[in-house]
């Protein structure tokens, strides 16, 4: 394993990874991968209003909020270092695709930020194994001339690649373990991985729910899709086309069946094409069976409107649970 002190490589030894969108999609450690090749990784800082505002100057106005914040992450890294790694996830398994904005991310960034970027990217299509492996090898070769390191890096990817689709989960990420101290019950929160894991993007909803005394179970705790052997359920509809669309539907359906989960919140962003389709599918089935709250967030989201809805939602469950009231 490389230790980052290898002197045979001339250019900057530090690669920046923006913490947004695709960063949250996988559990694969790009840091270890780059370490093997002799590089250090620098992550961007936590998202904040500043991140958003820096990013917003360069993004077209029709992009969604998470993309705007992603731009900010890239720009903050560019201040220190111009080697940026943006993986291009096109698909997480055969027959599904990522969101078009995630797919286009490297090109989008390269062509809209008017600053010199040494962009490192690699197309990852997990439905096409050979193709992806070739891409990874090419990336490794562009970063090192040492055949051993290249071999080790590709090997590392091969071994850990499986983690990408399957273990998009819990413990090591922001959410942490599902706490068992929620006296008032559990709320299921559904959303894309970045919406669940970045507290700036979700406006701290998960923490708020915990403050109100609820357990939070997110869609990240569920598989991305039904296993192959299971017949596809997805609310008796055709399998959706999108990776995380499947995860969202699967999570929604599982939460609906799970008696411990008393209510479901769906976090989406204004202008999200995938969610516009997906929400329609589960919306009708959830309504009437479990309390459901759909939250459409955007950069303009006022705290007041959001809090009113969350408060009303938790009140509803508290009062329903017989614990008749809650001191305001």
């Amino acid at each position, binding site marked *: 394993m490389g230790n980052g002190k290898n002197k045979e490589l001339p250019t900057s030894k530090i690669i920046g990874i923006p913490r947004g969108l695709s960063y949250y999609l996988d559990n694969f450690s790009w840091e270890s991968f780059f370490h093997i090749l002799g590089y250090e990784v620098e992550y961007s800082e936590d998202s*904040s*209003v*500043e*991140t958003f505002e820096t990013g917003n100057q360069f993004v077209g106005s029709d992009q969604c909020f998470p993309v705007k914040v992603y731009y900010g992450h890239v720009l903050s890294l560019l201040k220190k270092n111009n080697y940026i790694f943006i993986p291009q996830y096109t698909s997480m398994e055969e027959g599904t695709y990522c969101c078009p904005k995630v797919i286009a991310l490297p090109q989008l960034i390269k062509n809209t930020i008017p600053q010199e970027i040494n962009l490192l990217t690699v197309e990852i299509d997990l439905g096409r194994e050979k193709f992806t492996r070739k891409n990874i090898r090419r990336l490794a070769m562009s970063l090192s001339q040492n055949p051993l390191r290249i071999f080790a890096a590709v090997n590392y990817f091969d071994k850990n690649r499986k983690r990408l689709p399957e273990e998009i989960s819990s413990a090591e990420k922001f959410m942490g373990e599902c706490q068992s101290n929620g006296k008032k019950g559990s709320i299921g929160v559904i959303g894309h991985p970045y919406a669940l894991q970045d507290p*700036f993007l979700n*406006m*701290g909803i998960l923490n708020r729910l915990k403050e109100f005394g609820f357990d939070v179970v997110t869609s990240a705790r569920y598989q991305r899709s039904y296993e192959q052997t299971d017949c596809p359920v997805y609310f008796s509809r055709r399998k959706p086309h999108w990776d995380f669309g499947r995860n969202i539907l699967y999570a929604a359906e599982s939460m609906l069946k799970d008696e411990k989960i008393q209510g479901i919140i769906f976090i989406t962003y*204004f202008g999200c094409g995938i969610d516009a389709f997906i929400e329609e599918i589960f*919306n*009708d089935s959830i*309504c*009437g069976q479990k*309390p*459901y709250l759909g939250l*459409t967030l955007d950069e303009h989201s006022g*705290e*007041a409107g959001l*809090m*009113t*809805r969350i*408060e*009303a*939602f938790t*009140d*509803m469950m508290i*009062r*329903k649970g017989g614990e*008749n*009231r809650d*001191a*305001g």
Partner: protein
Amino acid sequence: MNQYYIGVDVGSVSTNIVVMDSMDNKKLYETLYIRTNGQPLESLNEGFITLKDKGYCMEDILGVGVTGSARILVGNIIGADSIKNEITAHAVAAIDTYPQVKTVIEIGGQDSKIILIRNGVVIDFAMNTICAAGTGSFLDQQSFRLKIPIEEFGDFALRADEPVRIAGRCTVFAETDMVHKQQEGATKEQIVAGLCEALARNYINNVAKGKSIEAPILFQGGVAFNKGIKRAFEQELAAQLVIPKHFNVMGALGSAILAKETVRDTKKKTTFKGFDIMQRKYKLKRVACQDCPNACELTEVTVEGEIAAKWGDRCGKWQK
């Protein structure tokens, strides 16, 4: 000697205050409905002066509850015992006045909501999302444009023999439609009736989308005064709507009941600061917190030079 609970609902269009008997939730001594006119504190002060003039004194007030979009601001200033969102307040009031209720339709100044209740418990609710079409503010604006006092809006609608069809999806398009239909010779009555139908349709397709609306249905909020809207809803839903006696102050009534519950549960004396509190010199300021890159905008309330409350931060450190 009578003792009371006070409920305050400071909304975008009106500020409502009720004075409720401490023993009987159905007995309201006062129901005030004051236009907010963009100045929540002034309108509340006006209400408090009225109450004081009528002889209510602070010692007889057992608790105060606040709701409405300005609830945090107002609640902090007057020392409310309970600060609750509008949905909970409306639901509590609806269940209290009409225990069998299954659906509450509430249309206020800038938002409209549907609350589903089964066995006296809220099981689901929805609010309008990004568009304010179909709320009181829009009706207000149109009544002004048509030069019909808002109070007569309903009567106008009922007089129409055949309403014209108006797009209710968006207020801008609705207005375009109304102008167009006027130019084609539709009467004011027909237009008003068409507008009522459009709002009811919009509400059912948007706010109440996918919800099962079961009778008994309670219709509350300021817009419930409008008989045209009531009729449009009844036609659309093929069911009767019940309009509670205090339809326009249900939010305030609910917060009075919530205050009663809170005081009873915590067994503490009320934190209400009295009717005169609004007359003191308040200064509201929006300040930016510079402690982290989030640069939250805080609201700072100073009373006679002393910082009384501060809120609006993401991290919560100023609120304590």
